[in-house]
């Protein structure tokens, strides 16, 4: 690893952390961890934006061209952070003595669990470092544009397969995934240019950074949301031990981990706003939600659900019912023929229902809903039987059922639960009522789509269980939990 690569890593991390702290300068418990985690994610996203803006004509030196712009953003954010942090009261990190209060057995257990997370990180690093790009969509879809642009030395347009054939006189490229978003491609180019060549291990390292960022950001935000240190650490282990999440870091190259990270972090920021009305966190949540469609097509769905629920949460009770009714009618009209009408009018489908524009492909599944009950068994197998999730999906319903009163009593718990309910309803509809059922049968998509929501689900469980206690010894009929006074 050369100095340029080191610099190409440090700059985005610092800028990302500065942007996070500018948005949320308050020093609540876990703020360093949150700044580190959000810093990595925001930094990498800013890298993509800056590179896309200034390095299109010279991708070979992309990081040199984009670094000044990124640095300006970082300096601006640092100035905002400095100004805002001055206006805040003295640091409120009330966390100082918590470590001493943790019993030795807990410290030992958590130490062992975190050592195992460290081992995973090291092995995943070696896996990325040693081998060329491995997973299918990575080399067939996600890295194609980046490799082409970097090795050509400049940006070229990727067009549909048809346009590529008929417009042979132009420097157009194509791929089976020509319409996929390019955010990750520009991240690849930043690191490739810093490495001085298309060195896949260096291009793929952000995926491991993202895995670490997810763990750091979740720990920090859970702490700020009132989860105790030991419980937050335990749930970090739960998240970090999920096999498929780690596989997406070790076998780098897919966009699902990015969606999982950005959606999870957006949800956390939104919950922070719901709990403490921290406007900076709301801005972060909205900004991250808006990034989702730039990562992967299904990001549109998650972004729509998240943004709609943010708006929904801001409405009065009366308006909420009206909006719910309107949303139900809207979805009914859309699925009952409105979507076909829309796609025909934007020119993506012809009158006979044939695909004119490949972008329609993602929506065609929804045009003729048909019940695929047999897929329920495959979904159950994916969630409960395969070794992708340990016991997560066995325990989540139990945990949420045990805490349904607490969830229902707090806005900052039931709104995220409502959001996730929408997301899982969308997945259930996709796999049970459309031809996507075959992706459940082949296990090619179902787990990856679930992966995108998993960190957010773990957040909901962690928050729901944050103050759960065992019933008192004397009475066998005591409530399962003793609720603390809600900070909100």
């Amino acid at each position, binding site marked *: 690893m050369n100095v340029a690569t080191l610099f190409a890593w440090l700059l985005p991390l610092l800028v990302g952390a500065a942007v996070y702290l500018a948005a949320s300068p308050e020093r609540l418990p876990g703020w360093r961890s949150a700044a580190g985690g959000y810093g990595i994610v925001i930094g990498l996203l800013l890298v993509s934006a800056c590179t896309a803006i200034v390095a299109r004509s010279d991708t070979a030196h992309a990081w040199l061209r984009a670094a000044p712009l990124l640095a300006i953003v970082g300096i601006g954010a640092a100035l905002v952070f400095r100004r805002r942090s001055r206006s805040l009261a003295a640091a409120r990190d009330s966390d100082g003595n918590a470590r001493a209060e943790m019993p030795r057995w807990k410290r030992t257990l958590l130490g062992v669990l975190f050592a*195992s997370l460290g*081992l*995973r990180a090291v*092995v995943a690093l*070696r*896996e990325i470092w*040693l*081998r*060329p790009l*491995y997973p*299918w*969509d990575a*080399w*067939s879809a996600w*890295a194609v544009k980046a490799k*082409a642009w970097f*090795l*050509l030395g400049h940006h070229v347009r990727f067009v*549909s*397969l*048809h346009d*590529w*054939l*008929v417009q*042979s006189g132009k420097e157009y*490229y*194509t*791929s*089976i995934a020509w319409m996929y978003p390019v955010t990750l491609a520009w991240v690849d180019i930043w690191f490739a240019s810093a490495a001085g060549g298309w060195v896949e291990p260096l291009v793929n390292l952000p995926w491991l950074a993202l895995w670490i960022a997810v763990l750091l950001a979740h720990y920090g935000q859970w702490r700020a949301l009132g989860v105790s240190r030991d419980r937050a650490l335990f749930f970090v282990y*739960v998240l970090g*031990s999920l*096999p*498929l999440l*780690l*596989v*997406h870091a*070790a*076998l780098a190259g*897919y966009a699902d981990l990015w969606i999982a990270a950005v959606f999870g972090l957006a949800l956390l920021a939104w919950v922070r706003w719901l709990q403490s009305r921290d406007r900076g966190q709301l801005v972060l949540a909205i900004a991250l939600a808006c990034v989702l469609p730039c990562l992967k097509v299904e990001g549109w769905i998650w972004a729509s659900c998240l943004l709609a629920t943010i708006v929904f949460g801001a409405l009065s009770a009366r308006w909420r019912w009206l909006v719910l009714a309107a949303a139900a009618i809207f979805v009914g009209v859309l699925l009952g023929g409105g979507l076909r009408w829309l796609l025909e009018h934007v020119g993506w489908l012809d009158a006979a229902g044939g695909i004119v524009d*490949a972008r329609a492909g993602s929506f065609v599944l929804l045009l003729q809903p048909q019940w695929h009950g047999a897929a329920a068994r495959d979904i159950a197998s994916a969630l*409960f*039987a*395969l*070794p*992708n999730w*340990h*016991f997560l999906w066995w*325990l989540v319903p139990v945990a949420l059922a045990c805490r349904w009163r607490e969830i229902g009593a707090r806005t900052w718990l039931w709104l995220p639960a409502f959001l996730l309910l929408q997301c899982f309803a969308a997945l259930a509809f996709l796999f049970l009522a459309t031809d996507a059922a075959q992706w459940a049968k082949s*296990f*090619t*998509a*179902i*787990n*990856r789509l679930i992966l995108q929501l998993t960190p957010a689900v773990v957040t909901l469980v962690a928050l729901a269980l944050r103050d759960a206690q*065992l*019933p008192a*010894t004397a009475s*066998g009929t*005591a409530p*399962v939990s003793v609720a603390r006074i809600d900070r909100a």
Partner: protein
Amino acid sequence: MPAFRLRRMIRGVVFAIALVAIWLGVFALTAGLPWDAPLNSGKRLTLEGRDFLVRSGTGKLGARGLEISAFGADGTALQTARLGRARSEQTPILRYRISDFPKTLELALIFRRSDAPEDVQSISLPAPILPEAAVDLTRLPQWHGEILEVGFAEYAAGQVVAPDNAQFAPFRIERVSLQARSWSEIFPRLLSDWFGYRPWALLSISALGPQLETLPTSSMTVAIGIGGVLSLLAGWLTLGWSKRRLLQASCVTALGAWLLLDLRWLDDFLSKHRVIETLYADKSWEERAKIQPDDDTLRAAAELSKFAAEVGAKRILVTGDSQYTTLRLVYFLLPLNAAPMVSVLAASPGGIVPADTLIAVLGNDAKYDAEKHSLQVAATTLSVVPVHEQGALRVYRPSESAR
């Protein structure tokens, strides 16, 4: 002894018996073992190392079994043993003790049946674990009728290791047996299902566990989950746990079960990674980049790039024997302007392939008719002129128009 202590002791004994019954039942159910199965298998066909014949590769009989020391010229090793006429339904459990089996290789069971003696059936097996691996062949539809011959084939692990980089290491076939189902084979079977090493596969990014072209395995998650829930229920019913105690026990059970699955996953992750270390460690990036599971495609791409540079071609339509090969070729060719031919032609019915575009074919799927100067690609016939050929790579130019 006071009555309450006696009651507690009796409850404890009942709980212990219930636990044994629950877990035996769960394991038997998971393994698909019928309840009336015998304790020990009566019918058993045992094959020692000396019973095997080396059909491909190099091997010799040693003191502890058949020692295989090298691949054959085709990059595989093959050993077979004649069985006479064994009834498959009486001997569905295959147990195999193979020592020092390298993880860069894949192990496959091969067999022939009397109803189709010319057809060799093959199925990938979990890599051997110590002391002995066991699989249930009733899950394999081809395992029926009379079995004439069984054997093992070994080759570079598919989707991970290229044949040229298989890094063969000697191993030893010590003992193989085919037997009826019995209670005594539950644990070897479940251990093989749950802890048998399986290499990284292209499907790993979407799901761990299911593997194409291997025997379906039982789920450790389901077994531990159901066993755990039933054990808690048994504890609550027999020991009269309070709500607090039940919750405590549930938390401890959930944590223990999670850790168990996590340890299994860590072991699997490390095993998978060890192969990557074996293949790639201590090599420069330039060397590592050439070690691809499909290095023949990489070599074809290098040859095609060279030819394209010689003739000044700017655009190439490529096709291979599979979608995988085609898309890998496109990726390896970058920054050359290449596109998957079948997809392009399907997206452009009636489209004309420009004369300055090369058409590259890797493999035998696309047929060239030398008399008609036509190339048949999927449902499309193109008029072409051959311009280059190197091994499995053929390159053409459109003669006039696409179709």
